[in-house]
């Protein structure tokens, strides 16, 4: 890990009014890693994602991707710099077709202007054609090509999750943030999801940061884990280290359990 990290977060934090939601948040993620961010409910995990993606502007600290500062950039700018995400509560473009959902993600990669589209200049046709071909190719990888014309809202739940991940990847991220991708899934679907994550990581040579409640999933696929509690990092390490960290056990199970765990 001698090389410079892909993502570097230095004592970032945010206050809402007088309330500190997250503070002194430090994180380094290197190219190719699969890192987990866990913590009890309300620990501030999604807030961290919102800080990383520009939804919230950090009131303190620094966030940088490949050495470029991200603080103060709007979410769409952060995405163009190379961080894209999925959402805890699925946020697809419901009335758009599966294909168009992915085309939206390709938006900033295409170059034809509004004028060329209005006057249907050649650049419009070539640009749109390229977007469509890319999107279809992409959806094929995700086995979503049978549903190209289906409205996103008509897909079954598991497919919607899959489409959301596909859409996030289509935006061409260097770092992918997945916010509870397994939420609401049954064990079978969770298993498929784990395989999908492993597959895209391999295929796109991707770096992934993942928020997850499902401990089995996190411990199973993440190489390193950060633990957040009450807006603060309390531990960082390999799954094994985290599993035996008394602070983590305390955060999850309360003090008594931690004591009994230590005794046993």
């Amino acid at each position, binding site marked *: 890990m001698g090389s410079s990290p892909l993502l570097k977060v230095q004592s970032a934090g945010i206050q809402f009014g007088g309330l500190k939601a997250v503070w002194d948040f430090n994180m380094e993620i290197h190219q190719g890693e699969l890192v987990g961010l866990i913590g009890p409910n309300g620990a501030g995990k*999604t807030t961290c994602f*919102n800080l990383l993606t520009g*939804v919230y502007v950090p009131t303190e600290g620094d966030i940088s991707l490949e050495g470029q500062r991200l603080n103060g950039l709007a979410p769409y700018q952060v995405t163009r710099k190379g961080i894209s995400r999925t*959402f805890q509560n699925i946020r697809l473009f419901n009335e758009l077709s599966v294909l168009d959902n992915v085309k939206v993600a390709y938006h900033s990669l295409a170059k034809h202007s509004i004028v060329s589209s209005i006057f249907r200049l050649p650049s419009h046709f070539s640009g749109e054609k390229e977007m469509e071909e890319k999107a279809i190719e992409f959806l094929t990888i995700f086995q979503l090509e049978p549903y190209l014309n289906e409205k996103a809202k008509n897909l079954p739940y598991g497919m919607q999750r899959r489409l959301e991940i596909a859409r996030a990847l289509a935006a061409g991220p260097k770092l992918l943030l997945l916010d509870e991708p397994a939420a609401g899934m049954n064990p079978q679907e969770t298993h498929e999801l784990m395989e999908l994550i492993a597959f895209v990581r391999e295929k796109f040579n991707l770096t992934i940061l993942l928020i997850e409640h499902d401990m089995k999933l996190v411990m199973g696929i993440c190489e390193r884990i950060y633990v957040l509690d009450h807006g603060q990092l309390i531990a960082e390490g390999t799954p094994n280290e985290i599993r035996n960290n008394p602070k983590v056990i305390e955060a999850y199970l309360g003090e008594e359990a931690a004591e009994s765990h230590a005794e046993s």
Partner: protein
Amino acid sequence: MEWIQQLINGISLGSIYALIALGYTMVYGIIKLINFAHGDVFMIGAFVGFYAIAGWGLGFFPALLLAMAVCAVFGVLIERIAYKRLRNATRIAALITAIGVSLLIEYGFIYVRGAQAAAYPDVLANKNYDLFGIQVSSQSLLILVVSIVLMIILHFVVHRTKIGKAMRAVSHDMEAAQLMGINVNTTISATFAIGSALAGAAGVFFGVYYTKIEPLMGVIPGVKAFVAAVLGGIGIIPGAMVGGLVLGVVETIVSALGFSQWRDAAAFIILILILLFRPSGIFGKNAREKV
């Protein structure tokens, strides 16, 4: 000295706005609906007062109470017939329905009665009192005093009674309130009843003060009262009162400076400045969509 007189005029106008704004703010607080028809409830109140005084020869206070009662019933009916089904509809559908209801009341009323204006009967002998060299009309004073009394009663109802507590609970979290055994329908109806009664009172005051009423009279004061509600922080009761008063005073000042043609624009400029720089209003807290 003339300035102080203008200020008093502004406060009288402002208290009318404040009374209407209260209904807007209470309804918005509880069901997140901009009740466009509220300005028309105000108009109905003015006409009920008019018929009570001119037709039946009632005095000011009986007419006022009658107008408030009729408007309360009317407000509840509007909610039950048109808005109740919209609780789970999109905000846009709700807003458009409210616009539709407003147009229906206005033009339905014109259809029945005709569009001509009516001169409000002179029910309160207007005397000018000389207070330390300032001319104050008895009407202004009465309107101000009665408005303040109504607002005090409202404050009492909202903070000290069971229904008030229910209203606050429902506006905070409708589902949780329902789970705690609060009858949400009754509470919403009560909110419409109280808000509409206040608008009815404002209608009678408006008639007495400006002496001319007509079926479309509720449109502009209605929108301005909404501005007042936004100014104070929508959903916040003291905010509506302060917002109404501020708006009334500002408008009077704009007129007094010789820009009476721009009076209506002043309200909208205030609205836009507030929305742009402090959308939560003077007393509001910031809330944003959860991601």
